[in-house]
Every structure is written in C-alpha cells, then in structure tokens.
C-alpha cells in the first residue's frame, strides 16, 4: 500500500501542529504564553457602558412609547384571561385543538389543562400565556414584514441572514440591561427580548415560503390580471401559507421558551418564576409540577399551531368553531365571578411528593455518583486541566514524573505517526488530540488558539469569517474573558462529545429498526418542544448545583439533533450504493462504518452543527446551576446591572457560535432542509 499523496493543506496543518507543540513546550517556561496576558486586558466594559448607557437613556422617550404600546394589550389580555373562568377557557382551547388537530389533540388539551387546574397553577399559566399572546403576534408581524421585504429586495438577504443568526445566538440576558434602561423595569423589556429571539424563524420561513411559490401560480395570477398587491396577497401569500404557519409554530415555541426564561427578572407572577423560586427553595415537587405545566403548555401550543399548518380536511368547519367559541363566551359570562379554582389541594399534594422525591434521590445517589465520577474524572477533568494537570496523586493516583511525560510524548508521537502514515489527515488530528489532552482545552496556549482558528477560518470562510473569529478572540482576551471563553468552549465540547456518543448510537439503532425509530420519535419531538429552562429541573434534582449538573442539562437539551440527523443520513444513504456494498459482501458492521456513515457524512456534519448551536444556546441557561464560563459572566453582569459586560460576554458567545456554525457548514449544505 502506498502512502496517499500529501496535499498542500496537509503541509499547512502539519506545520501548525509542529508550531503548537513548540508553543506548549515553551509555555512551561513562559507562563504568559499559557493564559492571555493580564497586562493586555483593557477596561472595555466601562468604555462600552460610557457609550451605551447615555445612548439608551436618550432613547428613553421612544422606549416609554413602545412600552405603553406593549403594555396596553398585555394588560387587556391578562385581565381577560384572569376573568375567564377556567371551564370556559378550557372549552375554548379544546375546541380550537379539535379544529386544528382532531379528536386526539382535543382530548390531550382537556387532560393537559385539567392537570394544570388540578395542580393549582392555572392563574400563573394564564399569565405566561398572556405574555406569549402578546409576543407572538408582534414577532410574527415583524418577521413576516422583514421576510417579505427581503424577498422583494434580494440584495438585502445576505446581511439579513447574518442579522438573524446574531439575533438567535446572542444570549438574551446579554442585552437585557440595555433593554431595561430603554423600557424601564416592567414586562416590556422581557417582551422585547422575547420578540428579538423569536422573530428569526418567522423571517426565514416567510422567505422560503415566498421563494418556493411555484412560478406557474405567479404567472397564472399575472395572466388573470392581478395587480402587484393582488398578486402578493391573493396568490403568493395563500400559496405560501403552510410554510408561513410553520414559521408561526417555530416563533411560538421560541417565544414561549424565552418568556419563561425571562421570568428571571421577576414581576410577572408566571410559571417561569414559579419554577425558579421552587428551584431556589429546593422544593423538588413544586419545581417538577411547574415544569410539567410548562411542558404541557409547550406541547399543546406546538401541536395546535402545527395543526393549523397542515392542509387538508378538518374534523369540523370553521363556522362550527366560531359557534363553539361563542358558546364558550356564554359559559364564561354565566360562570364569571364565581371562585371555581380548586384550593391549595394540588399544591399540598405537590409538597407531599417532595418527600418521595428526596427518598428517590437518596436511593439512587450511589448509581448517579458513579456516573458523575466517571464523567468528571474520565472526561471533564482531562479536558479541562489536561493530562498534565490531572496526573497528580489526588486525581489519578500518580504524579507527573519526567518518565511519565516522556512516555506520553513517545506514545502519542508513535500513534500520530502510525496513523499519519496511512492518512496524513488522521495523523494530524491524532497529534492535535494528544496535545489537547496534555494541556486541557482552556490551558492550550493562547497564541496557538489564534493560529489554529485563524488558519481554519481563513481557509474555510475567507476574510469575513477570519475577521469575525479574530475579532471574537481578541475581544475575549482584551476584556479579560479569555479563561471563561475557553471554559465555555470546553463545556460545549464535552457536551457535544457526550451527545454524539449517545445520540449517534441511538440514531444508528433507529436507522436500523423501524420499531425503535417509532418509539424514539415522540420522545425526540417532546424534547425538542420543551423550553430550555425545563431541562434544569431533573439535572438539578439529581446532581445538586455544579458544573456537572449544567453539563447534564446541556446534554439533555442537545441530544436530539444527533439522533435525528444520524438517523436521517443513514436512512437516506443512496440505496444503489448500499446495495453495491451488500453485493460485495460487507458485514453489517462494515456496512455501517465504511458505506453508510461516509455516505451520511453531510447529514451528520449538519447534525454536529445543530448540536453545537443547541449546546451554546443552553450554556447561558445552564449557567443558572453553576458554571465558571461565559454564561456565568452574563449573569454576573446582569446582577450588577453592568450593560457593557453583559454585551461583551454575549458578543463573544455569538462569535463562537457563528464561527463554529460557518466552519461546519459546507457551502452545499447551507440551504439543505432539516429532516423532520
């Protein structure tokens, strides 16, 4: 067997590896090569505050106007929902569910809302719903208008896409302080954050929907003599409606997720606040109960809005729905003024399960401790402090002697060379892996980070991406957030590794077995509709505050994309190539590794991308249960009302997200559709 040709980029990366080795060796002598030198740190957040605070204060009159605009409908909807007796409200929702999704959904709606009432969370759930009902129409309206404008002026699209990516990846808490300065303390700042976060899916779906209107429909409307307005409203929008409704669905779910998180600023008496205070008080039953309410609302909203996006026959006609809603109003009028809510019974019951839950936690502790130790010492520590840090009597039971160092160097060099002989690419990857395993991710010399990221972004994305990446790294270094940033990258990397190990395995099984796939699908669906906040509850219950708990929450949230994309990629591997593999006598295992997985490569990469995005967006929320990375910095800034620091931490997270997104997205896959 001959060695494969060494290409130019193999040389480049080989050189980079050699340089990195040199840097790691030098960093032993010169500590300023390790962490970003503190001498270079500038007081960026103060400068930013000096610029941002007056600017937003100057815009205050506009903010006051907007909050008046937002709070009037909010107050109206809140009081309407508070006034409506629950039997009437449930009747209305059940009818809407029946219209949208049929009998099963109607039954589910009745059961779910009944549970909410029984647990005594009805008023709080209604307050959350009121926030959603204000934020969703605003986001849908803005998103539709932006999408339609971008469709009309295609030149604006590249800039708009970048803006949407930023809106979706910049953690809301990072800009909450400026919003609070602008709108004053009250629900409007939270609503604004929720709108900012939930507008992008509507824009994207509007754009896709309008683009995909068949040309024959446009032409036939034109030939029927449609004026431009008629063409848009009577032909294009109705044809794009299913896609637009998909946008409404995604916007609703994003909005709900954000509304619940934003409860952290308090004052709404909503269900998000309930979870938060229950978690703070360590009341497991109450936090599980409130979490369940959130999940029920989320699933219900998701299925109802999805049902509207479906085209086809309905169980009943629109006019019956209207009649039913009138009936619900009559019921409401008849029952109004009576106190129908069950008393404290539900809450008392929830408190009672506290005890059982505590017993369960205590009983299961040994098992979870094993898991925790295995992951902490086996994965997290080596990735955080590296072999050089963890090889101590306290952690691994042996000290880092020169002999051990030498052995490590020899073994890794041998492995890298062996692999590199057959495939230079694998050899280089093995070399970097050995180096990272030695230093730990956060301990990797900072010039090396600049170098590796710089070359990767330059080659893959050109000057724009290179500038973004270098800007982000420089911002992190200069603002003194180098270590938190590297901690964020490390935590994400661990989470993504675990997600891929679990999710990839599940995806492979699901691709082979239809029954397992059918079993997994509703679980994945539910996990994906759950607001991020909810994932903290079980993690916190089982593992107490700490980085490991945050990791579990991130993994729970981000495990679905690998399952979906791996299964999708394997199932869609080209049938003729798979048959050719069978024909050549490949075993099942060979088929998987040598035929199907390589064919599924682009789908798997897309899944990796989605997993990283999910993990990064969960980072800030997971910081609530104790981490030491950028997400935590965002909270610190929030609690100190430090607008500048919040903005900077948020901006760095956005940079990390955008850079890794663009690095992993090949050109061809940018417009690929997401598997359902």
């Amino acid at each position: 067997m001959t060695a494969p040709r060494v290409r130019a980029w193999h040389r480049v990366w080989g050189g980079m590896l050699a340089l990195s080795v040199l840097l790691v060796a030098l960093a032993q002598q010169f500590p300023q090569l390790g962490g970003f030198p503190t001498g270079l740190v500038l007081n960026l957040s103060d400068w930013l505050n000096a610029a941002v605070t007056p600017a937003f204060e100057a815009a205050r009159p506009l903010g006051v106007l907007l909050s008046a605009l937002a709070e009037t409908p909010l107050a109206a909807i809140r009081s309407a929902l508070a006034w409506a007796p629950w039997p009437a409200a449930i009747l209305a929702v059940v009818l809407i569910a029946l219209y949208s999704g049929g009998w099963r959904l109607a039954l589910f709606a009745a059961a779910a809302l009944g549970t909410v009432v029984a647990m005594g969370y009805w008023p709080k759930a209604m307050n959350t719903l009121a926030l959603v009902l204000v934020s969703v129409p605003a986001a849908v309206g803005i998103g539709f208008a932006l999408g339609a404008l971008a469709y009309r002026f295609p030149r604006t699209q590249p800039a708009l896409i970048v803006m949407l990516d930023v809106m979706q990846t910049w953690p809301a808490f990072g800009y909450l302080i400026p919003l609070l300065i602008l709108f004053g303390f009250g629900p409007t700042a939270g609503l604004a954050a929720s709108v900012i976060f939930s507008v992008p899916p509507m824009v994207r779906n509007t754009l896709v929907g309008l683009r995909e209107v068949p040309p024959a429909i446009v032409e036939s409307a034109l030939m029927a003599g449609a004026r431009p307005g008629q063409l848009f409203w009577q032909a294009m929008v109705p044809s794009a409606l299913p896609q637009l409704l998909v946008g409404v669905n995604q916007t609703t779910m994003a909005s709900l997720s954000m509304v619940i998180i934003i409860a952290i600023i308090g004052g709404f008496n909503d269900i998000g606040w309930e979870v938060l205070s229950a978690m703070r008080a360590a009341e497991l039953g109450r936090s599980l109960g409130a979490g369940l309410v959130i999940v029920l609302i989320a699933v219900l909203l998701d299925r109802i809005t999805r049902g509207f996006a479906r085209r086809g026959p309905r169980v009943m006609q629109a006019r019956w729905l209207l009649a039913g809603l009138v009936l619900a109003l009559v019921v409401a009028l008849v029952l109004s003024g009576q106190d129908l809510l069950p008393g404290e019974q539900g809450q008392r019951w929830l408190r009672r399960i506290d005890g059982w839950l505590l017993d369960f936690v205590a009983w299961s502790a040994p098992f979870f401790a094993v898991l925790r130790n295995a992951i902490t010492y086996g994965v997290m520590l080596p990735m955080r402090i590296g072999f050089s840090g963890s090889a101590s009597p306290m952690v691994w039971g042996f000290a880092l002697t020169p002999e051990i160092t030498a052995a490590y160097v020899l073994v890794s060099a041998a492995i890298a060379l062996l692999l590199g002989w057959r495939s230079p690419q694998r050899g280089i990857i093995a070399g970097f892996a050995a180096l990272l395993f030695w230093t730990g991710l956060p301990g990797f010399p900072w010039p090396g980070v600049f170098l590796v990221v710089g070359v990767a972004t330059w080659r893959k994305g050109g000057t724009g991406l290179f500038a973004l990446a270098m800007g982000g790294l420089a911002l992190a270094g200069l603002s003194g957030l180098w270590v938190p940033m590297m901690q964020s990258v490390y935590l994400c990397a661990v989470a993504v590794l675990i997600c891929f190990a679990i999710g990839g395995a599940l995806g492979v099984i699901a691709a082979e077995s239809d029954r397992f796939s059918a079993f997994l699908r509703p679980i994945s669906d539910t996990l994906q509709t759950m607001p991020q906040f909810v994932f903290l509850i079980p993690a916190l219950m089982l593992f107490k505050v700490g980085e490991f708990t945050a990791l579990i929450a991130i993994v729970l949230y981000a495990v679905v994309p690998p399952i979906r994309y791996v299964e999708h990629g394997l199932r869609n591997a080209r049938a003729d190539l798979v048959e050719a593999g069978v024909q050549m006598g490949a075993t099942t295992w060979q088929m998987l590794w040598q035929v199907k997985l390589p064919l599924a490569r682009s789908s798997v990469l897309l899944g990796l991308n989605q997993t990283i995005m999910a993990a990064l967006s969960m980072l800030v929320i997971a910081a609530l249960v104790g981490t030491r990375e950028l997400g935590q910095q965002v909270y610190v800034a929030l609690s100190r009302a430090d607008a500048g620091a919040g903005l900077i931490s948020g901006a760095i997270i956005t940079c990390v997200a955008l850079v890794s997104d663009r690095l992993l997205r090949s050109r061809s896959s940018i417009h690929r559709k997401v598997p359902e």
Partner: protein
Amino acid sequence: MAQASSRIMLSCKHLWKVFGPRPAYYFDTAGYRIDPEALAARLRGEGHIPAVVDASFDVKQGEIFVIMGLSGSGKSTLVRCLSRLLDIEYGTMEFDGQDLARISGRDLIEIRRRKMGMVFQSFGLMPHLTALENVAFPLKLQGVARSEREARAREMLELVELGSRLDALPSQLSGGQQQRVGIARSLAPDPDLWFLDEPFSALDPLIHRQMQDEFLRLQNQLKKTIVFITHDIMEACRLADRIALMRGGRIIQLGTPAEILLSPVDDYVADFTAEVALSRAIRVRDLARPAQGEPPEGPPVPAAAPIEVVLPALAAGQRRFRVEGDGGLELEAGAVLEVLQRDARHGFRADGASA
C-alpha cells in the same frame, strides 16, 4: 375545425428574447443590422442564451396557431413574450391594433383581464381555492360581485364537464381534471386571444386524445384565436390551422400541417415529421382541387376528414371523389396515391434504420 378569417389578431415582427447578463447591450436603439444567425451565434459565444431569434408571424382571428419544437427550442419563452410575462429585447408586437410591446402598467393589466387567457403546463391552480373559486379567481380580481362570478365559473366548469366537482380542491382532482379547471379559468373572462403552453404534456399519454377532442369541441363552440404550444407533432397536426416549427429559438418553417408534412424546408423538418402517418394527418381538403368536367359519383367525403377515409373505395377502383360542401371540389386518386407512396417510403426508411 374553425376556418380562420383573414383579419389579423396578433402580428409579430423580428422578435428577440435573450437571457444572460446584459442582453440589452446587443440591441441598441438603432436596431441590429446584421444577420440573425450571426448575432445569435455571437450571443451564444458570449454567455447569453438567445431563446427567441428574429421571430416573425401573424396570427389570424379564429385560427389555431401551433408553435412546435423540441424541448428547449424557445416555445415557452416565445409565448411568454406574447403575453408579456417576459419583456422582449427587440421587435414589434401588435395586438388588436395596440402596440403590445410598449404597453405597460394599467393597460397591460386591463388587456390581461379582458382579452388574454393562458393555460399552463403545470396548471398553476391556487392550492387553497376550490375548483369553483379557482375559475372565479380572474373575475374576483376584476371586482366582479360574488354571485355573478360564481355563476360564470359554474358555467365554465360545466363547459369542461366538471360541473360535479365544484367544491374539490386541486389536490383532490386528477391531472386531467386539474387541467380542465385551468382551461375553464382561462376562459372565464371570455378572452379573445387564448394561449396554451403544452396544456396536455403533463398528463397521461392515454388521455391526450380525449383532451384534444375536447379542446376541438370547445374551439368549435367558442371560436377563439389560439396560440397553442406543443412538442408533439401528432398533436400539432391534429389541432393546427397553421404550424410554426421552432429550432434553437428560430422559426424554421411556418405553414399548414400539409405544407410542413409534404414540403419540409430541410432535412431537420423532414426527420421531425418522418414518424407521422401521412394518410391520417393529411386531410381531404389539403389535396382537393376544383372539379374538372363531370362531378364525380358516389357519396361525398368530408373536407376535414383524413384521406384514409377514401382508401376502401380507392382499393375498390374509384378514381375521383366528390368533396363535401358547395365549393365544387374533388379529390383525385393520383394525389392520394402519391401521399401513400411517401408514407411507404418513410416506413421503409424507418424500418431500415431500426434493423
């Protein structure tokens, strides 16, 4: 088949349509003076697609004008220029006394609303509207009151024999039914000029003939001026009063089906038409001539019938046939035999090629 009057409905001269980065550059106000072939070749060489090249033709009132050519020859582009869904680079188009190429805005919308109708290969039905609402759609855009437009739409759907599926959504209809809805919709505003861009190509070949018969029945009733696009030579010969044959954006021959079949201008056209069974495609009136001397005996043959209808009598020894109508025409056996001989030669050549 409707007999065309001599009034010209649509007249096009030297039409050009070019796709590419900057088509306008090649057509300055002074017009082009060079040979169209040379300009088309230059355009192709410089990264443009000349989709319609120097097309000139007249469409007479009441005739079925068929544009035929292989896929990619520029038929759809040409018909979209005529309906102004695309703007031409050069040339003149006169429709009903108006300069169609320069008209725009309100006037164009007005013309499309009242005088033009178009049927699309992929139907172009609104997925959210029922058959009835789809047909009423053009009238709705015009602001016709609901009861009135629905009455008209019902009438149109009855015309295409879909009176029983008024409330069906497009997704609940078969391809043939969807295209009938498309036809009814294009006819709802009672247009003078009717464009059909390969209306039957997306349908199952088995129902082509049925749809063609129905189309001819409609045209006998309505007497529209029709521009009909097809890539199917048999369809063209069955339906056309005149055929324009396109190749690479150019109209290479224009004439009645008989002219194209019997005197192709070049080998390309001859090859194109080789598969057609002449005894079926050539009609009695194509070969008829004024009767000389005694009118022939026997029952008269219809002028629009294919010449194969006389074959039994011909075999039985009849030499002359009286043609229906009061033009005093006759059909002579020699002319028929000549056509049959060509058919036989084609058949032989085709067999020889396949052997």
